[in-house]
């Protein structure tokens, strides 16, 4: 029986590892490659930690299995020693197995700092590249205007999105902190330019939500009372999943939305279309370029 148990404990880590190895092939893995530069760095970090932990896992489980087999064979009848090995520990070993993990852990800790900084620390935001986007889409902005292109307001249970409207001369207005009469609205459908860092202002109308773009590895809580800027950069022009990751009530799972990354022209065209739809008065000959207030 004891051999069965030895095998049992040796067997399960093998199953675990096999499952993990099979996982990517069965699509039990990340929802696609990270689709943003920051996401790729997060993935790299993940894989690095995965390597370290996998080696540790295999190592410790191997040793565990070994000591079990050793213990089982030592208790076979007729083994040399009647008593177990009498040892209260080894100072040297303790030092080794304290300092080696310490070094590895500290390495992990410091290795990740700049990724974190880039994601969250304001000074590390790619401000220059964001401003280049504003140039390209002809946004009419003052120096202190928000870097955000849209304001995403979470509420139970949907994402309400507010874009700035257009000026009379066709340029895009800057996003104001307060709603403006010219603002354009959408729900559960966030469109932003691709291949460049774009920023949104995240807020919530009621309880706490969390803005989660799994394919871009972006997650940020929307905290009641705060307006939190977040930036992300989608490589490809396609639509990405957007969901809520913080329990926000019974309909938490319902906050199904999408983020569409598209070219600058498509983005402007999308806003134009929103403007047209929003000014729909169902009279065919109505000039749809009217500046609405």
């Amino acid at each position, binding site marked *: 029986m004891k051999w069965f148990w030895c095998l049992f404990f040796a067997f399960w880590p093998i199953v675990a590892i096999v499952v993990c190895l099979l996982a990517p092939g069965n699509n039990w893995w990340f929802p696609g490659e990270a689709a943003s530069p920051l996401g790729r760095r997060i993935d790299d970090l993940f894989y690095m930690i995965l390597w370290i932990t996998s080696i540790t896992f295999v190592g410790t489980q191997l040793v565990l299995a070994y000591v079990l087999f050793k213990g089982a064979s030592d208790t076979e009848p007729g083994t040399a020693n009647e008593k177990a090995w009498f040892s209260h520990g080894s100072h040297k070993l303790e030092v080794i197995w304290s300092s080696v993990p310490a070094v590895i852990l500290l390495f992990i800790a410091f290795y990740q700092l700049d990724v974190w900084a880039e994601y*969250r*620390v*304001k000074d590390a935001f790619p401000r220059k590249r964001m401003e280049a986007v504003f140039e390209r889409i002809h946004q009419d902005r003052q120096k*202190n205007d*928000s870097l*955000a292109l849209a304001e995403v307001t979470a509420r*139970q*249970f*949907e994402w*309400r999105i507010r874009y700035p409207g257009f000026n009379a001369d066709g340029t895009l207005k800057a996003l104001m*902190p*307060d*709603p*403006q*009469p010219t603002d354009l*609205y959408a*729900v*559960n*459908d966030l469109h932003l330019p691709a291949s460049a860092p774009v920023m949104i*202002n995240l*807020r*919530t*109308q009621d309880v706490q939500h969390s803005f989660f773009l799994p394919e871009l590895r972006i997650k940020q809580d929307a905290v*009641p*009372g*705060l*307006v*939190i*800027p977040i930036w992300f950069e989608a490589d490809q022009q396609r639509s990405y999943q957007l969901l809520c990751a913080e329990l926000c009530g*019974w*309909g938490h799972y*319902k*906050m*199904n*939305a*999408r983020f569409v990354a598209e070219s600058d022209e498509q983005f402007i065209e999308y806003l134009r279309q929103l403007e047209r*739809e*929003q*000014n*729909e*008065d*169902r*009279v065919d*000959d*109505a*000039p749809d370029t*009217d*500046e*609405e*207030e």
Partner: protein
Amino acid sequence: MICLISGCGGQPEFSHSEKFQTLKPYAQIYVDQVLDNYFGSPSDMVAWDKLPLELHYGQGTVVEASGRMLTVELQAPHAEITAGTEVLWDSGILNDKDSAWILEWDEAKHQAKLESPLATNPEVGDAVILGPGQILATGRMLYAEHCQHCHGVAGDGNGPTAPYLNPRPRDYRKGIFKFTTTQSSKRASREDLSRIVEDGIPGTYMPSFKLLTEDEMTSIIEYVMWLSMRGELENQLIGLLADSYSVEAVEDRIAGGDETSDTIHQEFIDAVNDPDSFPFEVDTIVSRFTSEWVSSQEPDAEVQPLTPRTPSSDESIAKGRELYLKPSLKCAQCHGEAGLGDGSQTFAVSKDAAGQDNLTPGLYDTWGNLVKPRNLHSGIYRGGRRPIDLYSRIYAGIKGTPMPAFSSTLLRKSNPEDSGSEMTDEDIWHLVNYIYSIPFEDVKAGQGGSSIANPVKDANTASEEDSEEVAVN
């Protein structure tokens, strides 16, 4: 444990409307039977051809049978049928047996190849129905997934989640939907329903289901209409029977002395038996609401402004404000002079449907729920924020609520002398412009900063840059 896992719970059932219990048991059974025959149960639905639903089914016959492979030819070409469409057996040996799915579909000859679902083979000439109520089945599945826990299995707006919601989820069984762009006497158009599903209703718990595909959206809409019709038939039928066969009515009649419970019961059975009696009434009820649903889908059922929207200007807004305060229009009576939704009517005691005074003062809708007039400062427009939406709200009212249609006021144009209270199409646009401007009143006055439309800001008091400080520091 095995029993626990394998002993599945019962299938969902349509719940009855409240008045059902007041009927005599035999009347209850009749109602159940009628509904069961025409609508079925959630797990066994009936696609009734009398209903004006776009069920997209086609009829055909088996033209070739070689082994288990069959060829079915449709009577007419059909756009909705493709490989994978479900096929039911209408006659022959497979009648009432499992359905099959089309393997190949020949668009040109409108012929479908499929495999017989059972060992027994249908014969050439058997009639089949292709994709009957496919939309209903999909709709039912999606409804169970997305809508049922609020709107209830029967669409009675009384799902398990409903008690926690304010306002309550819509009860479809009256056939009334609040936010439509159809005339006041019409029902909702499919377009209205799908817009609500797509965009949600801001300010309520009805969320946006934007990411449903177009097919899914259609299915849900048709299923909701189906539920609505089912509920309407149930309600009307109960109303019809309650007159004479409710427990109370039967007691009354027996007390009248002429009748006994036996004679009443026999009379009921006769009426059921008599095609001119109850069956005829059922037909009348059905044709009544189907004609309403059909006419509501017509283009002329839509609210159509006569003139394009007047561009918003200070002048237009001022005019709108003037109209808003006019005693002959009574906007402020409910919405309040400042537009805060606190008009005098919200404090007045009104009467319920039975003519009794309501316990809580305020305005009530047809479903008997206390409703609040919209606070126009909130910047939240439940029926949508397009000008046509606001126009429709004023022109056609909000169905089932005290918000009346003002379309009648347009007729006043025919009486040019009475200029004092005339309201024109332009006037509605002025009102719309005014309503749009209300949330920005403070901004207009040049004060900037906070407004009620943006209350979170008040807490923050900070500009966005400051908030970034908070967040990022």
